[in-house]
């Protein structure tokens, strides 16, 4: 656990695709299965990016709106971090392309981070650290995925869960009273709990990569599609998330009552409610965006902030605990304060 002082959040924007899909209309499950799925996961609707629209496009729109709102900031941005598992290309890093598209200076450090559901917390830690040690006045954290591009629509274990979104978070140099506390963990033993078998250098794309396999009833996919071992991910999350959050609270000398809102990665309602109960949190302090936006991977924390807390973020000083967990396996918690940040209304593309 560690603390970074002198950096604060100052702006937030999120873009989702306009195209909605209702899980009531999901064609590869029975009505009974769909009803149980929606009740259990809390996911009724998803947002799906049209062909050709990437995570970087969604993040770009969010960043553009944010930078127009915060006029005159482009020249001061010294670090850009793009967290995604669905980059525009394997080579080059998409973050560098975003630096140019956004008109940021060539002196701006730009790099990609390959992380999923823990990505927002990790992204905050990396950008705050880099800003601190380089003296950058401002930093832009872009976090998002178009998970729909790596998911088989015929896989009922993944397709009705994941949704697309991109976010932009502006950070600024501030005084040492602003502190951001982090706890970050990984366990590579669980690397296969969520994975895509082919397409990397370990298993290069071949003709067999695109052949659909019938895994079980309602699950058809090829080797370029995401595979999720639901029970392993579920048990990992139940085991690690609440203790990590509790340990970071203790490290900061804080209690549940000191935190205004707890924003967990939006995995699914069953899992998130189990975590909430393990932490003895009141339901009012744990907002969800699952119903309309599903599991938006690394963007799920900013999606929840923007769709559920925008007005409060804009008008009030808030103490927040953010927790991300998933692919890797990787998990992390951050505790920070926001003070009337520019939180824009949800953007649709």
């Amino acid at each position, binding site marked *: 656990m560690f603390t970074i002082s002198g950096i604060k959040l100052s702006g937030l924007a999120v873009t989702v695709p306009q195209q909605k899909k209702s899980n009531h209309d999901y064609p590869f499950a029975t009505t009974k*299965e769909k009803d*149980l*799925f929606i009740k*259990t996961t809390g996911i009724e609707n998803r947002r799906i990016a049209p062909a050709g629209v990437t995570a970087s496009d969604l993040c770009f729109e969010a960043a553009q709106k944010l930078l127009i709102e915060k006029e005159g900031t482009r020249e001061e941005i010294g670090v850009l971090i793009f967290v995604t598992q669905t980059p525009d290309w394997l080579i080059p890093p998409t973050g560098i392309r975003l630096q140019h598209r956004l008109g940021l200076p060539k002196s701006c450090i730009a790099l990609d981070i390959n992380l999923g559901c823990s990505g927002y917390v990790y992204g905050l830690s990396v950008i705050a650290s880099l800003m601190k040690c380089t003296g950058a006045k401002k930093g832009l954290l872009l976090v998002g995925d178009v998970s729909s591009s790596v998911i088989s629509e015929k896989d009922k*274990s993944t397709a009705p869960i994941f949704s697309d979104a991109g976010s932009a978070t502006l950070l600024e140099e501030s005084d040492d009273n602003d502190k951001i506390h982090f706890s970050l963990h990984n366990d590579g033993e669980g690397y296969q709990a969520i994975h895509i078998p082919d397409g990397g250098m370990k298993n290069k794309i071949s003709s067999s990569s695109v052949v659909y396999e019938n895994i079980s009833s309602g699950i058809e996919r090829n080797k370029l599609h995401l595979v999720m*071992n*639901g*029970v*392993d991910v*579920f*048990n990992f999350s*139940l*085991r690690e998330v609440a203790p990590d959050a509790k340990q970071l609270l203790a490290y900061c000398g804080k209690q549940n009552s000191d935190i205004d809102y707890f924003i967990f990665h939006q995995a699914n309602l*069953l*899992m998130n409610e*189990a975590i909430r*109960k393990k932490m003895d949190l009141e339901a009012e302090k744990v907002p969800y965006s699952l119903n309309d936006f599903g599991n938006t991977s690394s963007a799920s924390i900013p999606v929840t902030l923007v769709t559920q807390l925008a007005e409060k973020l804009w008008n009030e000083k808030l103490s927040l605990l953010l927790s991300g967990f998933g692919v890797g396996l990787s998990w992390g918690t951050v505790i920070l304060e926001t003070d009337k940040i520019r939180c824009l209304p949800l953007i649709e593309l």
Partner: protein
Amino acid sequence: MQLTDFIQKFEAEIPEIVPGTLKPETVFKQLDSWNSMQALIFIAMVDSEYRLTLTAENLYECTTLSDLFSLLEKKALETSKSQV
């Protein structure tokens, strides 16, 4: 930990099951309403009620509700020993 209490909790988590109809020898995987989502709901119940973790392999290896209960008893014993 009581078998009858465990069966009641199992029944409570599965829609369409009339309380009191399941027996220790019930093959839970053959129930019409048993599926992968129901398995996760059951795992969450076990975590919440018994503070025990069930893996996919555990569920695969068990056939009847009695098997599941015996496994939970064994896990509970191992947990209590490791805490001594």
